[in-house]
C-alpha cells in the first residue's frame, strides 16, 4: 500500500475542503490508492455535526471584523479553530485496505501525534472518551473525521506555533472548557511548521505501515 502526499501549504479552508473531496473521488475510483493532504489554514472556525451555537463565544460581526470565517462541515465533533501555525493532516485512506475499524483509526491518528511529540521529548496522552492528544490537561491536537464507503476524510490538527492559540479564546474547543497548547509553548522555543512536516509524514508511514511518494501541489 502506498499513499500520495499533497502539500497544499497555507490555503483557504474552503479551497482545501473542496480539494479533499476531489482527492476523495480519486481514491474511490483508483484502488488501492490512499492520500495524505497537509496544509495550514487562514483563520477559520469549523463546526462538526450537531454543533452547539453557544460554543462560539463571539458575534458574527466580531468574527467578520477579525476575518474569521465559519463553516459547518460533515466531520464529527463540535467546534474547532484553524489558523496559520497549525498543521492539518487530512488522510484520505481507504480503510478497506487497512482495517475497517473506526475506533482503531482514531487511535492510530492519536498514535501519529504521540510518536511525533516523543521526538521532541514530550509525552502526549490519550484520555478515554476524549479523542485527541493531550499534554497534561491541555490539548495539543484535535481529531475529527468523516467516513464514506470506508474512505476517510478530514483528520487532525496539531498546534505548532504559540501565536495561533490566541484565537481559541473565541470558542469552546470541542464544546469543552479546556486550554489548548502548542509545540512551541511546551518547548519554549521557536519551531518552524516546515520542519515538523517531514517527521509527521514519517510517523504516518510508520503507524499505518505505508510507503509514500512525495508530490507538492501549488494551490
Amino acid at each position, binding site marked *: 500500500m502506498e499513499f500520495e502526499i499533497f502539500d497544499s501549504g497555507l490555503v483557504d479552508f474552503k479551497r482545501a475542503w473542496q480539494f479533499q473531496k476531489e482527492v476523495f473521488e480519486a481514491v474511490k475510483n483508483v484502488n488501492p490508492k490512499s492520500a495524505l493532504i497537509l496544509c495550514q489554514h487562514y483563520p477559520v472556525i469549523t463546526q*462538526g*455535526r*450537531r454543533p452547539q451555537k453557544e460554543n462560539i463565544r463571539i458575534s458574527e460581526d466580531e468574527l467578520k471584523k477579525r476575518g474569521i470565517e465559519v463553516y459547518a462541515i*460533515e*466531520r*464529527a*465533533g463540535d467546534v474547532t479553530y484553524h489558523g496559520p501555525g497549525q498543521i492539518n493532516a487530512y488522510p484520505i485512506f481507504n480503510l478497506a485496505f487497512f482495517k*475497517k*475499524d*473506526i*475506533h*482503531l*483509526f*482514531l487511535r492510530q491518528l492519536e498514535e501519529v501525534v504521540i510518536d511525533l511529540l516523543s521526538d521532541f521529548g514530550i509525552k502526549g496522552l490519550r484520555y478515554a472518551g476524549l*479523542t*485527541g492528544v493531550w499534554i497534561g490537561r491541555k490539548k495539543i491536537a484535535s*481529531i*475529527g*473525521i*468523516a*467516513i*464514506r*464507503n470506508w474512505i476517510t476524510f478530514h483528520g487532525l490538527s496539531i498546534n505548532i506555533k504559540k501565536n495561533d492559540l490566541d484565537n481559541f479564546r473565541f470558542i469552546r474547543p470541542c464544546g469543552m472548557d479546556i486550554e489548548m497548547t502548542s509545540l512551541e509553548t511546551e518547548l519554549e522555543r521557536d519551531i518552524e511548521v516546515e520542519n515538523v512536516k517531514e517527521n509527521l509524514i514519517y510517523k504516518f508511514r510508520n503507524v499505518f505501515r505505508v510507503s509514500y511518494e512525495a508530490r507538492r501541489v501549488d494551490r
Partner: protein
Amino acid sequence: MTKVVLPELSEGIDKAIVSYWYFKEGEKVNEKDDLVELTTDKATFNLPSPCPGTLSEIFFHEGDTVNVGEILAIIEEY
C-alpha cells in the same frame, strides 16, 4: 421488506447518533445510495441502502441515539 440495522462498527463502539437522513419516508432509494449519516465518538459515517425500494418507515430520527443491532428503518423492496 428489508430492515436497515445499525451494524457492528468496531470494538468499543456500541451506539451512534443519527445525524442526517438523505431521504424522507416514502421516497425511492437505489441499492448503495447513502441512506443515513451517523456520528460516533469523533467520526461520522454513512450507511448505504442494502437494496432498492421505498423507504417506508424511519424509527430513529436526527439526534436520536441508536444501538448496534437496532432497526433504523424499513425499506419495501420493489
